[in-house]
C-alpha cells in the first residue's frame, strides 16, 4: 500500500481521489462504518458540495457521490475496518469481519473527523434518562426510523443546531426552545430568521442547561439565566446537545502525534504534515468543525503534500514553529509553520474566537516582531474567520512560537 487513509468521510475520500489522480497506485481508505461517506450520510438537508464538487446536493447524496468517485478513481475503500491500535514500528492494527490485519504504508493520512461533545463531557448534572442526544445520534435515529420524542430542547445555536431543529421537525417533534450561553445565535441571519418563521422555536440566549431530569426518559430540563442567575424548569422529553465539536483524536494520540491545545487535533504545518514523519492529518480531525466541502478540500491539500513525500522521502519538514492564539481567540488552523512554507488549505488560516466581534483587528507576532496586522470581517464563536497567509514568508522557522491576538486586547 502506498498510502493508507484512515477515515472515509469527505476529507479522506477527497484525499484518496487526489492521490489517484496524481498517479499513486495503491491507495487504501479504511472506514469503520458499514458504509463510507462520513457525517454527511445522515445530514438529510441541502447545501453540500459547493466548494469542492461545484454543485449543491443533500448530504446523503454527497456522501454516496464521494464513495463512488473514490472507487471510480481506483482507490480501494474498505468498509467495516476499524483501526484498533498501532504497533511500535508504526504499522496499523485493524479489525474487519474478515479478521485482524496489520497494515503499513510510507504515508498515512488521518482523517478521522470530529464529534459533538456529549452531555457528560459538558458536566451537566441531573439524572441519566434516555432521550439525551447529540445531533449525530438524532440524525441517525431519524434515518433508522427510531422514535425521538415529541418535545425537544436544542442546546446550542450554531449551524448544526438549526440542522437539529430541522431534523426534529421532520421527525414530528416540536422544539420547545433553543438555548445558548452566548448573547446571540451563531448561524447566518437568514437561517435564523427562516427557522424562527418555519419552526417557531424561541431562541433563549445567555441561558445554560443546568440540569436534566426524569426517569426513565427525560421529563424536564433546568435552565439557568446567566445574567440573573435565576433557574426555571421546562418540560420536554428530548434534549439535543449540539455542536461543541472535538476532534476524534484517539488514533492521532496512539500514533504519538503532538496535539494542538486549542483545536485538540494534531498540530500540523500549513502543508498538513503532522509531527511524525509519514503522517498527515486532514479534515475535521484538525478542527471541529468545518462544512464537508471545506473538509474535502483539506483532504485534497494533504494529498498534494503526501505526493511530495512519496516522491522524495529524504526530509520531513522541520523544525516547526507553532502558532498559538491568545484569549479571547480560541484557536488557529493549521497551527505550525515549517521551512517548507506551504500554502495552507484554500490559501488561508481558519481562526476561531470565543467572542463576537465585527471588523476585528488581528496582530501576528513572532519573538516580538510584528509579522502581520489586519482586520477580519467578523468573529463569531463556532465559525471560522479567514486569515490570509502571506505573512508566512516572514516567519523565522528557527525562531520562537508565533502568537495571534486581537489588537488592543
Amino acid at each position, binding site marked *: 500500500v502506498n498510502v493508507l487513509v484512515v477515515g472515509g468521510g469527505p476529507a479522506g475520500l477527497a484525499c484518496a481521489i487526489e492521490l489517484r489522480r496524481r498517479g499513486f497506485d495503491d491507495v487504501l481508505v479504511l472506514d*469503520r*462504518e458499514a458504509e463510507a461517506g462520513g457525517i454527511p450520510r445522515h445530514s438529510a438537508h441541502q447545501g453540500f458540495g459547493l466548494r469542492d464538487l461545484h454543485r449543491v446536493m443533500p448530504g446523503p447524496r454527497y456522501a454516496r457521490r464521494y464513495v463512488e468517485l473514490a472507487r471510480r478513481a481506483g482507490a480501494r475503500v474498505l468498509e*467495516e475496518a*476499524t483501526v*484498533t491500535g498501532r504497533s511500535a514500528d508504526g504499522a496499523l492494527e485493524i*479489525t*474487519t*469481519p*474478515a*479478521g*485482524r490485519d496489520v497494515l503499513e504504508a510510507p504515508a498515512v493520512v488521518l482523517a478521522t473527523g470530529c*464529534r*459533538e*461533545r*456529549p*452531555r*457528560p*463531557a459538558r*458536566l451537566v*448534572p*441531573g*439524572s*441519566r434518562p*434516555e432521550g439525551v*442526544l*447529540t445531533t*449525530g*445520534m438524532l440524525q*441517525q*435515529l431519524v*434515518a*433508522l426510523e*427510531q422514535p425521538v420524542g415529541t418535545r425537544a430542547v436544542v442546546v446550542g445555536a450554531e449551524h448544526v443546531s438549526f440542522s437539529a431543529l430541522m431534523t426534529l421537525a421532520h421527525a414530528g417533534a416540536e422544539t420547545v426552545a433553543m438555548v445558548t450561553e452566548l448573547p446571540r445565535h451563531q448561524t447566518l441571519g437568514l437561517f435564523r430568521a427562516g427557522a424562527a418563521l418555519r419552526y417557531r422555536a424561541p431562541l433563549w440566549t445567555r441561558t445554560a442547561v*443546568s*440540569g436534566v*431530569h426524569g*426517569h*426513565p426518559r427525560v421529563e424536564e430540563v433546568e435552565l439557568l439565566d446567566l445574567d440573573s442567575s435565576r433557574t426555571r424548569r421546562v418540560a420536554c422529553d428530548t434534549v439535543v446537545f449540539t455542536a461543541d465539536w*472535538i476532534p*476524534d483524536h*484517539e488514533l492521532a*494520540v496512539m500514533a504519538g502525534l503532538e496535539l494542538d491545545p486549542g483545536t485538540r487535533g494534531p498540530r500540523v504545518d500549513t502543508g498538513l504534515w503532522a509531527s511524525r514523519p509519514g503522517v498527515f492529518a486532514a479534515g475535521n480531525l484538525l478542527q471541529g468543525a468545518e462544512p464537508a466541502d471545506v473538509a474535502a478540500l483539506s483532504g485534497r491539500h494533504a494529498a498534494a503534500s503526501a505526493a511530495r513525500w512519496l516522491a522524495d522521502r529524504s526530509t520531513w519538514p522541520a523544525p516547526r514553529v507553532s502558532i498559538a492564539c491568545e484569549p479571547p481567540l480560541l484557536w488557529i488552523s493549521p497551527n505550525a509553520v515549517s521551512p517548507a512554507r506551504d500554502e495552507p488549505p484554500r490559501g488561508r488560516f481558519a481562526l476561531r474566537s470565543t467572542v463576537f466581534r465585527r471588523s476585528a483587528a488581528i496582530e501576528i507576532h513572532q519573538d516580538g516582531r510584528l509579522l502581520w496586522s489586519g482586520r477580519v470581517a467578523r468573529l463569531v464563536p463556532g465559525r471560522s474567520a479567514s486569515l490570509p497567509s502571506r505573512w508566512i514568508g516572514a516567519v523565522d522557522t528557527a525562531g520562537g512560537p508565533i502568537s495571534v491576538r486581537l489588537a488592543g486586547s
Partner: protein
Amino acid sequence: VSSALPERDVVVIGAGVVGAAIARELSRFELRCTLVEAGPDVGAGTSKANTALLHTGFDAKPGTLEARLVRRGHELLAEYAPKAGIPLERTGALLVAWRDEQRAAFPGIVERARENGSAIREVGVEELYRLEPHLGSGAHGALEIPDEGIVCPFTTPLAFATEAVLAGCDLRLRAPVTRIERLAQGGFLLEAGGDTLTTRFLVNAAGLRSDEIDRLLGHDGFTVTPRRGELVVFDKLSRSLVEHIVLAVPTGTTKGVLLAPTVFGNVLLGPTADDVQDKDDTSSTREGLAYLMAEGKRIMPELLGYEVTAVYAGLRAATEHTDYQLTIHAPEGYACVGGIRSTGLSASMAIAEHVRSELGAAGLPLQVKDELPVVRMPNIGEGRPRPYAQPERIAEDADYGRIVCFCERVSRGEIRDALAGPIPPVDLDGLRRRTRVLMGRCQGFYCGAQVSALLSDAASLR
C-alpha cells in the same frame, strides 16, 4: 393457600450484587429458589453505580462482621472471577497523606490492617512519586495496600444471577414486594409484582429498601438513609496516568475522594458522600461535580486536561449503625441482609456463604446438586483480549469483527449474544452493562441509533 405447604424453599428479595450472590449460592443446592427484583434488571441499582473496588477490608473495624466478610469475600471473588469471566485487576492501592496530621494517622491504619490480616507497608515520598509520577504535588507519604483491586461491577451480579438461573433459580424482574405475611404453618406469603408466592425461608437483600422489607415483617432494627456518591469517569486516553487506586485518608464520615483505574480502561474520580432522603434520587449535582473536579485537580492536575466520558451517582445503603445489619431470625426462617453500605461488591460472595450456612443451621436442607452449571461471562474488561482482538473468534463468526460501538470496540456479535443471553437486557442501560456499548467517549454520537435499533428489533422478536 394458607393450609398448603409453601411452594418454595427460599425466596431472595433483591437482585443486586448481594441478592444475586445469595441466589447463586443457594441454587447450588437441591432447593426451589426464587429471586425477586423490583427493578427491570439484575444489578441495576446501587450495584451498578459505585467505585467498583475490590476491597481487602484493611480499614474495616476489626472484629466486625463487615471486616470478616469483606476479607473472605475478597478471597472468594478473586478466585471466582477469572473462572466466571468477571474482569478483575489487582492494581494495589496507595493511601496518600496530603497533610502532616493525615500522616500521623498512618500507625493506627497499619495496626488496623494487621489486625484485619491485610498486607500493608509505608511508602516514602520519593517512592510514591516513582509509583505514581502524575500525582499532584505536596504528598507527605503513603501506605501501599498491594491486594486492593478493581472489579467489574456489571459482570459480577450478572454472573451470579446467570449461574443461579441456569441452576434452576426462578428470576422475577419488575416484581416489587408489596406485602409479606407469615403463614400459620411456618414460612411466608409474598405479593411481588402482582403474583403471590409462598416460601419456607425468606432472604431480604433489598438494599436501599431492606429496612422497608424488614418493617413489613414487623422488625424495626434499622433505617436506611441513602448516602449519595457522585462519580466522574475520564476518557480512556487518561488511563496511562494512573497505576494504582489512589485513596485518601478516611475521616469520620467518609473514605474521601479516590482516583482509580477501571476495568474498562478509564479513570474514575469520586465519590462524594451526601445523605439524601429519596431512595431513587441518583442525580448528580452541580456542587458535587464542582467538588470532585476541585479534588481531582489537587490529586492529579493532569487528569483534568482529559475529556469526561461519564458522570453518575449511586446510593449506598447507609444506616445508623456502623456494621452490616445482617440478622438471622432462625425460628421464623428469615434472613435480613441490610445495611451493606459500600463493601457489598467485595463481600458479596462471603455474605452469601454466611447466609447459606446460617440458614442451613436454621433448618434449610442443603443437599448439593449433582450437576452445576459452569458460567463463563463474555469478557468486557481490558485485562484480557476482547473479541475484536481475537482473530480465531472472528474467523469462526465474522460478527465479532464487525465493530458497532467504536469507542468501546463492541462487536455486533457481542451485542447479538447479549440480546439472546439467559438474562437478556430490557433497555439500553442493560445492554450497556452487558457489552459496554454507549459507555464510551461519544455517548452514542456514532452508534447510538444503530444500537437502539438492534435493541428494539430484539424486543419485537420476543
